[in-house]
Structures are given as C-alpha cells and as structure tokens.
C-alpha cells in the first residue's frame, strides 16, 4: 500500500487493534495522514470510521498499537496532556452537537470563554469572523433548535475552528444534507483548510463529495485498510472490494445480506 508521498505525517496509526463488546472493529490498522491536506477515511457504515476519530482524540483506548498526533503518542498520556491535545483539535460532529441551552453566538464563543482569558471585544471579533466565514453571521442570536440540519453543522464547523486548531476532524459532514447544503459544506471544508493551513480528516461514505474535496483517501473494511490513494487513483483501482465501494455495486465482497441462516428456514419457524 502506498503512502501519501513526500508529506510529513500529522497523524500516524500503527498496528491498531480495537474491539468493542468482544467484536473486533479494527484488526490491524496502519495509516498516516499528511499535514496540511484534506484526507478522507471512507468505508461502508459500521466499519468503525467514527470509532477511529474517537481513538485519535483519545476518547477510546486501543487494545494494541500506537496513535501519534504531531509525533505525540495519544494512548496512555495523562488526562491533562490529553485535554491540552484536544484543544488543538477541532471536531465536527455528525449533527453539529451544539449546546442546546446556548445560542449560536455563545456556542461559537464557548471554547474561547472556556480556554482563554480574552477580553469580550476580542471574543466578539473572533466569533463574528468565524460566523461570517460560514455565512451565518445573521443567525448569531438564534437558538440551535431554530436551525436547520445544514445550518447547525455550519455553526458546529465555526465552533470547531474558533480556537484555530491545527487539525480538524469531520465526522460524516455530508450525511443527511440536501444537495445545496452539501455543496456549501464541501466548499467550506476546502476553504477553511486552505485559509487556515490546517490538516483535515473527513470520515464519510459520500464518494462524490469526498472526491471533490479530498487530496487523499483511505478505504477501511473488515477492520483493516484495504486501499489508499488519491480519489482518482481509487476510481481506477482493480481490486473487487474497492470497485464495489467506489462504483456503488450492491453486491460484491461486501454482501448485501447481514449474516443469517437459510432463508426458508427462517420463514418456516415462527418465533415464540
């Protein structure tokens, strides 16, 4: 498997093994994420893409293997160091995960108020510039319940980058959005990445959008990395698995059916 060439890695995973409730999620995952680029991690639902992000932020501990962010080992560092590390990472949740008792402005201001002693006028400027960049300056005084799904995600994005992190993790940023909001998010991810010179990691299964925005993509399945390359390279990939994923074939190495017993057998037996 090739590595993104000529790039200094920002995140490096090596020999990662993780299981949940006795079910192995990752068998042996090694990958590196280049600094300053947009990297996508793709794979079908249930392959543990989100789990991977949680491992990177130290919310979960791997069973084996190492996770290095900025050369610093994440597994087994103390909580103080972990919280310091998290301040340098922006995280966009699938649904924005705004604090529902604060309005849009306060949500974006929240990390600043928590972690810095900045005067109010400076906080105001920072919040307004971030809201301006996601196009929601006018929505500053709305409550999260008044926002649409796409808007909530944009506010989440503004909050994720308000501390000027070096690394932003996007958890399914395109899931469940209408085409216009999707386009907006694609543009924002690209723009923010270039304007702030940060490293972006996108976890997604939306091939189209990822192809538009990512410099590099890894594909995960069955607990391991099965391919890596630029989106164009992956499209041309010959392996049946990658073909199935990139070309949206319903059946292939990934079966359509969840493992089950014989179909007639299931029909015959009435459950108690």
């Amino acid at each position: 498997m090739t590595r993104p060439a000529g790039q200094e890695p920002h995140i490096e995973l090596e020999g990662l093994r993780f299981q949940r409730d006795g079910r192995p999620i990752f068998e042996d995952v090694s990958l590196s994420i280049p600094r300053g680029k947009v990297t996508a991690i793709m794979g079908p639902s249930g392959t543990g893409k989100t789990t991977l992000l949680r491992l990177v932020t130290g919310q979960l501990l791997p069973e084996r293997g190492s996770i290095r962010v900025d050369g610093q080992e994440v597994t087994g560092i103390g909580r103080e160091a972990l919280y310091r590390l998290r301040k340098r990472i922006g995280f966009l949740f699938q649904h924005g995960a705004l604090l529902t008792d604060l309005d849009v402005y306060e949500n974006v201001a929240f990390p600043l108020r928590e972690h810095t002693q900045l005067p109010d006028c400076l906080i105001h400027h920072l919040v307004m510039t971030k809201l301006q960049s996601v196009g929601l300056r006018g929505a500053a005084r709305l409550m999260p319940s008044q926002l649409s799904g796409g808007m909530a995600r944009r506010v989440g994005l503004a909050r994720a980058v308000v501390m000027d992190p070096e690394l932003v993790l996007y958890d399914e940023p395109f899931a469940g959005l209408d085409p216009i909001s999707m386009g907006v998010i694609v543009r924002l991810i690209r723009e923010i990445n270039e304007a702030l010179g940060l490293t972006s990691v996108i976890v997604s299964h939306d091939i189209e959008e990822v192809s538009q925005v990512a410099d590099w993509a890894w594909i995960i399945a069955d607990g391991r990395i099965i391919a890596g390359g630029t989106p164009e390279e992956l499209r041309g990939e010959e392996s049946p698995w990658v073909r199935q994923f990139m070309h949206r074939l319903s059946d292939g190495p990934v079966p359509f059916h969840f493992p089950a017993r014989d179909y007639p057998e299931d029909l015959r037996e009435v459950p108690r």
Partner: protein
Amino acid sequence: MGAPATVQLEGQSLTCAGEWRLPGVAALEARLEQLSLPRGRLEISGEALEGLDVAGARLLHRLVSRVEAAGGEVNLHLCEEHRRLLELAARVRRPERLHEPRESFLSEVGRVSWEHWWEFRGFLGFLGEVVAEFARRLLRPSTARPRRFLNELEQGGVRAVPIVAVLSFLVGLVIAYQLSTALDTYGATVFLPELLTTTMLRELGPLIVAILVAGRTASSYAAELGTMKINEEIDALRTLGISPFDMLILPKLLALIFALPLLTVLAGLSGMLGGALVNWAVHEQGVTAFLQRLPEGMSYRHFWLGLVKAPVFAAVIALIGCRQGLRVKRGAGGVGQATTRAVVQAIFAVIVINAVFSIIYNLQGL
C-alpha cells in the same frame, strides 16, 4: 388487485379461485370455517387460483389437515408453483408454547436482587469517581464555575422555596392537629410545641425537603444530562477539551449541597408556623406563648440533628440524578426511563439513609 378469493363446494369437489392473499385471508377463513366438508375423498382444484401467498397457503394447508384429521383423503390439483408454496407452508412449525415459561418466584427474587446489587455497586463506583475528581479539583479552585453554580442554585434551590414552604406549613398543621387530639386525652396539650418542634426539625423537615427535591431536581438532572448525552453534547464538550464533570456535575452537586440545608431550615420554620397556628386556633395560645414553650437547649439539638442530614441527602440526590442521566442509552424510551429511575432511586435512598441516621442517633443516645 385481482378477483376476491372464493371457494365453492359441490359434492366431493372444492374449487378455489381468485386471489388467496393476505388482504382477503380473514374473510376467506370465516368462509372456510362455515363449510361442512363431506366425508371421504375430497377433490380440491386450485388451477383457477389467480394468486397465492404464504398466508393463503397456510389456510389451504389447514383445510387439508382438517379433512385428513376427519379421516378423509384429499386430492390436490395445483400448479407447480403453488404446490411448492403449500409445501413450504406445511413445514411451518407451530411454536410449542406461546408464552415463555413463567419464572418461579424464587428465581425472580434472586434475579431482581442481583440486578439491584449491581445497580448499587454501579452507584458506589460513580461515587468513587466523583470523590476522586472532586479531590483533584480542591487543589485547583480556579476550575470552579461560579456562574454555573449560581444558575443551578437558582434552579434547584430558589425555585423550590414556595413549594417547600407551603407543603411543610401544611404538614406542620396536620401534625399539630393529630398531636392535640392525642394530647387532649391526657390533658397535656401544653407539650404540643415541644413535640411538634422535635418532629418538624429533626425528622419531617429534612425528609419533606429531600423528597421534594428528589422529585424536582433528580429528575431534571437526569433528563438534562440524558438529553445532552443523546445530542452528543457531552461528547462535544470532551472534544472541546472541557471535562463534563467540571461543567455539569460539580456545579449541580455543590449547588444542591448548599441549597438543601437552607431549604431544610425553611421547612422547619414554616412547619412550626403551621403548628403555632393550630395551637392558637385550637388551644387559644398566641404565637409568643408557643415560642416561649420551646425549651431552647432541646430544640437546638434537634435542629442540628436534622440539619446534618440535609447535605448527605443532597449529595445522594444529585449523584443519582447525574448518574442516571449519563447512563442514558439511545432510543425513545431512554430519557424517560432514566428520569423515572432517578426519582425512584433518589427517594428510596433518602428514606433508607434517614432510617440509618435514626438508628445511629438512637445508638448514640442523641
């Protein structure tokens, strides 16, 4: 939709036609029940069937079994496809018992006790975590959140003032009435103030407040944290580098520990006011007389004995509420279950702890 399902009996032959599918099955079943099937050989012809599904096939199979059970014989004429479907339907096994065997009383008691034991252990684990975190915070008071604390104090304490005052006033009133009936018999109504004060300050005041707060606040903590957990807000806090313990649990815990003793004092006072009112109305003794009857030393002791319990109740209520909130699982019933469990456990814990206090006080001769 094709033609409705029909069945026609002529002598020894039965003709099935139309759509033998799920929507028509109920009507068809009633029709089949009414048929008085002839003895001996029955010819069933299903060539005219326009459609058959598993439900229809089951019905057909039952018809065949009925004839065979009566000692008859059946000759079926079906197209190949329908015959295979009938074979499939014939192999459906009926569940042997429709209901799970009833759990025996003893095993139920055992299971429930085991579950409660684990619940209790879980609570002790949470208590341990909170104490450990709290000890760490004591070294660095800068992580305190005064604004959150004040907000929680208002929600859990100030807003509870009216209801605590009214209810304990009424309880004081009722207790005084009961006492004066009993004391009248012995002509000892002069002791009413002492008895009432002892009851209100030492037992009822703290208990009323704790139960009210368990109902109001434990449920709201569980619902608040549970909703935040489901909305991923708690995860969001963690990834923003903020400990949910600092931001959510600690202010709630401290606010309640601070508020509950104050509410307990209030409850004691308004309960005594209710008693004094009864004393004045029934025994025509003024409030001053009531107050003069309070033997100072004794009341003070009861006052403190009652007050000591309040922070303990507060801690338990806040911890149970928070723990249930943080344990919420995704799903529509999650938050509802958590709030219910929080209130039930909090009230249960309050009453048990109160009993433990009573035993300790008695053993110490207080």
